[in-house]
């Protein structure tokens, strides 16, 4: 392969460079987003592993410590309280220089700061005289509130029963080390992150392919010329692939740098109650290297596929015949999957729901080109003006390519439709004055009730304390604000060893947190998908102009107004965008119906509408950006001194 010639071809000059820059930009954007999608998965894994030490694994032999954990609450935040007692020579927990001695309290930096800021009676008195501050290794995120409390192994805190809910508390467990295992909720987050990555990566791959086609589109004439002067197909392929890969590698490096620069911003996206350690979002060097190798390889592969035309025919003549009609079975598949959705409910297993959603997503993608073809036929049949006729015929001619332009938005519309309207209606805030509840050990209900009454009175918190079965309920006065609730919490701390007095809102906090995180995740996925869809639409539009530049040039030369050519291009994107985008959203909403809780979420609907409006506007804007390119390729029909 002649690298020198490849380099000269690459440098090209004039309009050729525009294509190079567009490709480079496209590859940079997709690499940055790909790194984000991959890094997010590893980041959740790192979080899960960092929090694993608080999720004890029972020792089979040689226990060195007893460990238990529970949630405490302050204002609207959860505090993870880890109780530890040494049985022998216990190792230092992560983020601590040594194992905590009995009676010692260690706080995370954020909890220490909050304890110093709030009046002692609201928080600090629960964790008096902290012995030290926990290091980052103990925390899943920098703002996390964690307290580690040392005990004698026989203390009630390490022997009493705890809540049966695994999310709320981990019962006292004898452990052989403090490695632990990632908790069930961190595994759930990893699964959600994986699904989100898949949703983001699929449009990214389509985007990468479009970028590679752009490289080929601007080169095919010169490469056809090389074929005419006797270059072998192998040489032509090698040169183009080398060229595409050089550009892709440069784009991938730019993308990696852009991602690195964006990490501080991305780290601010709150998940699981807090932002990220920036280091967690940096993928390891191996992952980075793999992405930097994979992106140019994928672009090279797409270039080879795009090149077939030139290699097959030295004249580069595209033979266009009436495309075979697409099979209706594609739509039948979608209808069959949709028919199954009403059978699902909130009680269905997560795996079944995930599979059904995946199938629906796949079938929307399968049915897309068929529907675009039908839209094209209707548009062409009803067209009165040349622009609509051209647009309709093009949609019929290559519905897959038209679908590629709008598929990102349509598939994102499906996701938006599904997630946007899911309502957090089940988590209603507590009605009336706040009540703190704690379950008392059997036979001690009266004693605990009396103690609670005395402690609250001493703290100056007006409350009515009653027992209901084994649950002691402290109903605070109607004037109780968040500070009063925290004073009550502090007063009642340790009332029942191993159990935290909680309000109804506290008990729902985990569910609310997951729903809030799903919403943040949805917005992130929608933003990324729409970004990719917009960039993809822009690249596809530019690439389509370069593909057809000769025909466009000759049409303009024969007197066709630029507006007609541009109008046809616009209609070619807008018609399927409106029909498919709207259709996909409706399918998404339909799929979400069995899982809707109560009514439609207003916030969700507004987010959905805003995302869709921004996405549609972006796609139309990206298409409009290539208008100067259309003008430039058609303005100069044949500038040759002949």
């Amino acid at each position, binding site marked *: 392969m002649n690298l020198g010639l490849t380099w000269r071809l690459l440098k090209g000059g004039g309009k050729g460079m525009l294509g190079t820059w567009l490709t480079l930009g496209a590859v940079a954007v997709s690499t940055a987003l790909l790194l984000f999608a991959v890094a997010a998965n590893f980041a959740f894994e790192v979080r899960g592993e960092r929090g694993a030490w608080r999720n004890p694994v029972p020792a089979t032999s040689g226990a060195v410590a007893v460990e238990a954990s529970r949630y405490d609450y302050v204002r609207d935040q959860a505090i993870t309280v880890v109780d530890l007692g040494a049985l022998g020579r216990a190792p230092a927990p992560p983020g601590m220089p040594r194992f905590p001695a009995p009676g010692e309290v260690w706080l995370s930096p954020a909890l220490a700061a909050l304890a110093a800021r709030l009046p002692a009676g609201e928080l600090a008195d629960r964790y008096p005289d902290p012995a030290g501050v926990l290091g980052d290794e103990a925390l899943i995120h920098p703002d996390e509130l964690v307290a580690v409390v040392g005990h004698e192994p026989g203390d009630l805190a390490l022997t009493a029963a705890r809540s049966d809910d695994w999310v709320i508390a981990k019962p006292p467990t004898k452990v052989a080390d403090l490695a632990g295992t990632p908790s069930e909720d961190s595994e759930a987050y990893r699964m959600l992150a994986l699904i989100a990555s898949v949703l983001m990566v699929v449009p990214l791959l389509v985007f990468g392919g479009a970028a590679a086609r752009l490289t080929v589109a601007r080169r095919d004439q010169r490469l056809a010329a090389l074929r005419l002067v006797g270059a072998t197909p192998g040489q032509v392929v090698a040169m183009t692939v080398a060229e595409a890969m050089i550009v892709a590698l440069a784009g991938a490096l730019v993308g990696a740098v852009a991602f690195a620069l964006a990490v501080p911003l991305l780290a601010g996206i709150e998940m699981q109650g807090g932002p990220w350690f920036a280091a967690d979002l940096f993928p390891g060097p191996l992952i980075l290297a793999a992405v930097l190798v994979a992106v140019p390889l994928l672009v090279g592969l797409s270039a080879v596929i795009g090149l077939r035309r030139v290699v097959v025919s030295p004249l580069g003549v595209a033979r*266009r015949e009436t495309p075979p009609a697409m099979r209706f079975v594609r739509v039948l598949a979608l209808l069959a999957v949709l028919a199954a959705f009403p059978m699902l409910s909130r009680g269905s297993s997560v795996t079944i729901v995930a599979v059904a959603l995946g199938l629906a997503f796949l079938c929307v993608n399968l049915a897309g080109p068929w529907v675009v073809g039908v839209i094209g036929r209707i548009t062409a049949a009803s067209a009165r*003006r*040349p622009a609509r006729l*051209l647009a309709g*015929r093009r949609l019929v001619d290559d519905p897959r390519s038209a679908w590629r332009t709008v598929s990102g938005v349509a598939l994102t519309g499906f996701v938006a439709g599904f997630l946007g309207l899911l309502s957090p209606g089940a988590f209603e805030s507590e009605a009336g004055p706040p009540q703190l509840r704690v379950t008392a050990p059997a036979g001690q209900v009266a004693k605990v009730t009396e103690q609670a009454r005395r402690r609250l009175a001493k703290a100056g918190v007006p409350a009515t304390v009653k027992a209901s079965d084994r649950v002691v309920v402290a109903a605070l006065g109607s004037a109780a604000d968040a500070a009063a609730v925290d004073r009550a919490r502090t007063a009642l701390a340790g009332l029942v060893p191993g159990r935290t007095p909680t309000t109804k809102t506290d008990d729902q906090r985990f569910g609310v947190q997951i729903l809030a995180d799903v919403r943040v995740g949805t917005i992130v996925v929608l933003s990324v998908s729409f970004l990719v869809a917009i960039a993809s639409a822009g690249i596809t539009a530019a690439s389509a102009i370069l593909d057809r530049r000769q025909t466009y040039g000759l049409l303009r*030369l024969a*007197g066709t107004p630029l507006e007609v050519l541009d109008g046809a291009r616009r209609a070619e994107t807008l018609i399927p965008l409106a029909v498919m985008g709207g259709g996909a959203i409706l399918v998404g909403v339909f799929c979400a119906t069995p899982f809707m809780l109560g009514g439609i979420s207003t916030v969700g609907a507004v987010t959905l509408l805003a995302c869709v409006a921004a996405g549609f506007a972006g796609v139309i804007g990206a298409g409009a950006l290539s208008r100067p390119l259309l003008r430039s390729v058609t303005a100069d029909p*044949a500038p040759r*001194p*002949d």
Partner: protein
Amino acid sequence: MNDVLVGRALAKRFGQTVALGGVDITVRAGEAVAIMGPSGSGKSTLLHCLAGIMKPDSGEVHLLGRRIDAMSERRRSALRRTRFGFVFQFGQLLPELPAEENVALPLMLDGVPRAQAVRRAREWFGPLGLGSMETRRPGELSGGQAQRVAIARALVSRPAVVFADEPTGALDQRTGHDTMRLLAEATKHNDASLIVVTHDPDVAAWCDRTVEVRDGLILPSGVRA
């Protein structure tokens, strides 16, 4: 015969290269003129200047007595659509449109309703030997058939002048011969003038006269019989 298209003292440079060095040319109604010359002689530049595609650096172009080189691009574009027809070497048909819609396109661009435009387009298929090809797409036509569709498209608006740039360049000799015959006959039959840029004497033989271009200038030559 009346003068349809007149070029006076046309000059055009591309950087240091002189493409046209002050050319005078007159084309009469119904006349077929071949512009011949080797590569780089300036023949295509002359065609582009006469067709209003390119503005000459100096000189004037008149169509039926109206000066067109000073018009705005929009007006020249409209003129090209309505008063001129074009046939190129290849690539001028839209691959996704069936043949009849390719021919109807100039009429539709000029505001003729679609049904009427397609009906008028179909009238050209029989005389050009394209019967039953109306709904085929360019990819389903042979090179000669595609060129005949292009001829129909060039003539459908009843233009005053048809410009052809190497119209047989991509065809074999026999097909090229047939295509050129059809082009010459059809333009004459429609009272249109024909200007053909070619370097093929066999193509030029179908025209009433030949203009030889060398180094941006027209050589003195005789009128063909």
